[in-house]
């Protein structure tokens, strides 16, 4: 189930955990910088969709035990996982979604 849509003006921010940057380094080492750049370009395109608050349940599915954790199937051979943190105003209404990238995983 997608996170709550922030009211009025949807805002989505993208972040990443140190573990995700480590996985990017691993990807560079495993397949080379050039091939890795192609995959990461696909990944940024997926992030662009998230930024536009496009939540495609065909490619975004729950991941793991945490209800706020999801898996994005962005490439034939790779997925990334991310957590959703919601900023709320004083009335507890969502005002901003923060999508924090966690890991890059092989299928």
């Amino acid at each position, binding site marked *: 189930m997608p996170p709550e849509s922030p009211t009025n003006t949807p805002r989505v921010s993208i972040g990443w955990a*140190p573990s995700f940057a480590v*996985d990017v380094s691993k990807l560079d080492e495993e397949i080379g910088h050039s091939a890795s750049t192609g995959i990461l370009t696909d990944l940024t395109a997926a992030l662009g969709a998230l930024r536009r608050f496009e939540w495609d349940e065909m490619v975004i599915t729950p991941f793991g035990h945490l209800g706020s954790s999801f898996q994005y199937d962005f490439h034939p051979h790779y997925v990334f996982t991310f957590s959703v943190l919601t900023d709320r105003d004083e009335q507890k209404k969502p005002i901003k979604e923060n999508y924090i990238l966690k890991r890059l995983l*092989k299928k």
Partner: protein
Amino acid sequence: MQQSELSSAPKIPIEQPRAGSSTDPAAIGRSLVIKGEVTGSESLFIDGKVEGAINLPGNRVTIGRNGIVCANIFAREILVLGNVQGNCQATELIDIRSEGSLTGDAITARISIEDGAIFRGGIDIRKLGESLVPSNLKAPGIAKVGSPLADAYDAQAETEIAEGQYEMLDDEADLHDLLPRWRSGTPALAHSRSAR
């Protein structure tokens, strides 16, 4: 000596939940049974029964004297006065008191097992702040979805996020700016969002 301990790790003070105070831990009462996954960002006192998984990175989980937990627990501190069956991972301390029982493996920076406590399982002591990814699961490559390594890596990333160790891209920035930043290897600074 009244009691002996496996280590000199400090004890975790027992925080009994009291009604009406926002600073006390959330509580699962004696008559409550929860089957599923417990997640969140606050400490928890369990005096009932929980089956499933407990993921409270950065917080304390206390299993009270009446508590029965059949679940893997991931938290900052785990205090066991009741009965736990499952693997426990704590970034700081696992404290098993004399009336407590833990059946499962313990991965933690520090552990205290009081005289009379029951413990059946393995202990993996890590340095404070060290990754909780089991050493036998470490691999140089990217983990595969569904593998134990992927689950352990994910828990590691969750801990980083819970501790505020993440970076945010400026809302107006081009997404293509991300690639050089990911590759720069600049360590993330503790981050706090403006509102929650």
